[in-house]
């Protein structure tokens, strides 16, 4: 039995932005000595803050579960930076499991990331991926998300309040894509979508009233 869990602070939530994803680079003739012959790419999967913070104040370790064909497919990274570099030839889903620090006494969160090695000319319709093709050989697939600690316990709350963790760069730049600017742009886009849908709703309502009358 562990220590008695500290009291949770009700009706309060703390959000921390995180960035996860992978970068990949085609290997030329220069290959790491231990890499198998068929491996063509070198990739790095990472979890970090929007400004490159290591997030070690909340994250204890990150477990990456790779494809079974890799030796020891479950890789635990228990020190910042929480990233893993490997070589390979194919894309697959990587299971990412983030374990939080002891004081948080929160369950780990788990999600999947599709490892990307190749560029697609047709951008994915979902538009999630922010592609950053600097040079022809580099591929990046990065996602922004927020870890929300709903009703954190008091100890962890102090940790969270110790330093401002929700700091986004104000402007979009080459390096920091996820910024306040991007969020604003996104809201604007969504608002445009809402107004379009509203227009459509009006049209349909008109139709409906005509049809029900007749």
């Amino acid at each position, binding site marked *: 039995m562990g220590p008695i869990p500290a009291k*949770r*602070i*009700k*009706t*309060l*939530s*703390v*959000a*921390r*932005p995180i960035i996860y994803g992978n970068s990949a680079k085609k290997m030329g003739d220069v290959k790491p000595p231990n890499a198998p012959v068929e491996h063509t790419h070198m990739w790095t999967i990472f979890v970090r803050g929007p400004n490159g913070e290591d997030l070690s104040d909340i994250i204890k370790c990150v477990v990456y579960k790779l494809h079974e064909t890799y030796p020891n497919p479950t890789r635990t990274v228990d020190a910042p930076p929480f990233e893993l570099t490997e070589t390979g030839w194919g894309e697959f889903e990587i299971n990412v499991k983030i374990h*939080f620090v002891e004081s*948080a006494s*929160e*369950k780990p*969160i788990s*999600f999947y990331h599709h490892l990307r090695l190749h560029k697609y000319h047709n951008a994915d*319709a*979902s*538009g*999630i991926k*922010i592609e950053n093709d600097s040079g022809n050989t580099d591929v990046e697939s990065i996602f*922004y*998300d*927020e*870890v*929300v*600690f*709903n*009703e954190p316990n008091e100890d962890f*709350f102090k940790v*969270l*309040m110790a330093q*401002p*963790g*929700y*700091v986004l760069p104000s402007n979009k730049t080459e390096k920091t894509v*996820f910024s306040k600017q*991007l*969020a604003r742009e*996104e*809201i604007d*886009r*969504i*608002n*445009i*979508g*809402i107004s*379009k*849908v*509203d227009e*459509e*709703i009006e049209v*349909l*309502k008109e*139709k*409906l009233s005509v*049809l*029900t009358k*007749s």
Partner: protein
Amino acid sequence: MSSSDIFDVLNIQNHRAGSPGSSGHTPVPSRTPKLQVSGMQRELYNLLGDNTPPVAVQKSNKFKDKMRTMAKPSPWSFAEFEPRQSVKLRHWVKGSKELVEQQPQVNAFEKYNTKLTIPEFTEEEYNSFMKDKTGKDDDSKKWSFRDVRQLFDLCRKYDMRWFIIQDRFEVEEQRSLEDMKEIFYLVCHQYFMAQTPDNPLVGSLKFSKEKEVERKKYLQRLLSRSAAEIAEEEALIVESKKFEMAARKTSSERESLLRLLDSPNSDKPIAQFLTSQGMTQLYNSLLSDKTKKRKYEQTVPENPWMKQQQQFAQQKQQMQQLQEQKVITNNKNINNQTQVKKTKKQKQELQIAVKRKADSEYAEQLLQNFTAEERRSLGVQTHGEKLPSGAYLRSTRISTFKAATQTKIATTLQELGLPSRPAMPTSEVIQHHELLLGRISSMLDLKKQVDKLEAEKDIKK
């Protein structure tokens, strides 16, 4: 089989008929007159034998009750009257002879003996008021004054009974009934126009021959239908009735559906339903709506004992309330009174709300040292709601829909050029995204409804 046979079988000496000595003479006819009976009844009477009952039970002839009225009969007298000159008739009238003879006798049916006033005119008059018509109308040309005169005479004579008039009308050429009616009304109209043009009734003297002919043709057709045609028509009517019923049913169903969809009105802001309290309210209202709709309510037989107990409990509560009210009025504390009235559930809710309020107050207290800007940079916010505690990724909490709806929503988002998962799922972005999803969902609902209605309309056509 008669009584003697039975006596024979039972070996009983018939003291009268069975004695050998008296076989020579005829049996003495019984004193009671033989009843006129037949069939089965006669057989039964035969079985009776000599043991006839001493008194024949017969229905006594019942006479009519005597008149018991004490009033004197009113006198009626046979009086003479003259319905018209040279005719004398007699009829019974109530009243004594002297009284009746004092009054002049009138025919009670005289008032029904009425005559139509049909205009009379000379040839000159006819020509004068018909001159503007004869020029135009070809039909009226054929009608000579003589014919018209004859027609009017016949009308007068037979009280405009057209079939008789047509029968009695004597001209060389055959005239249809409609022709006759037409000329009659035309002449009448012209006549009265010349005499009293101000009379408002002149306008009603109109006769449309075409319409009359059409009406008759229609009736002809209606009456000359064959049995099969009638049957078919009836079947069609039944079918149409069925269709109407079905249409009415679907429309009523649709109305109720729309009402369900409309509460809350989809065009109203949904902000009030975004809080958990608003949500429960909405849920409850929808739920109660549903129960109202339910046709077959389970009726649990009442337990009279329970009812009694409830009554007792109510009385007790009322007594308590009265007492408490007294106390309260003394203390001038109205707050308690309202709380007493609340049910247990409400109390519970209140407690929860109070607790939550305390929680959020505590949370606020913790954050009181931070400005809004600082709070933002810390990513902390107080939502004041009951949400499952724990850590999660914000993007995983985007609302999902039924599989079919989900794909439709995804398509719509694609059409709008928006991603199904926002690139930056910050709380603000997600809030907007949720709003958008709600709108799209209601739009899809509407679209479905419209499509359905249009399809139905096409079918109706």
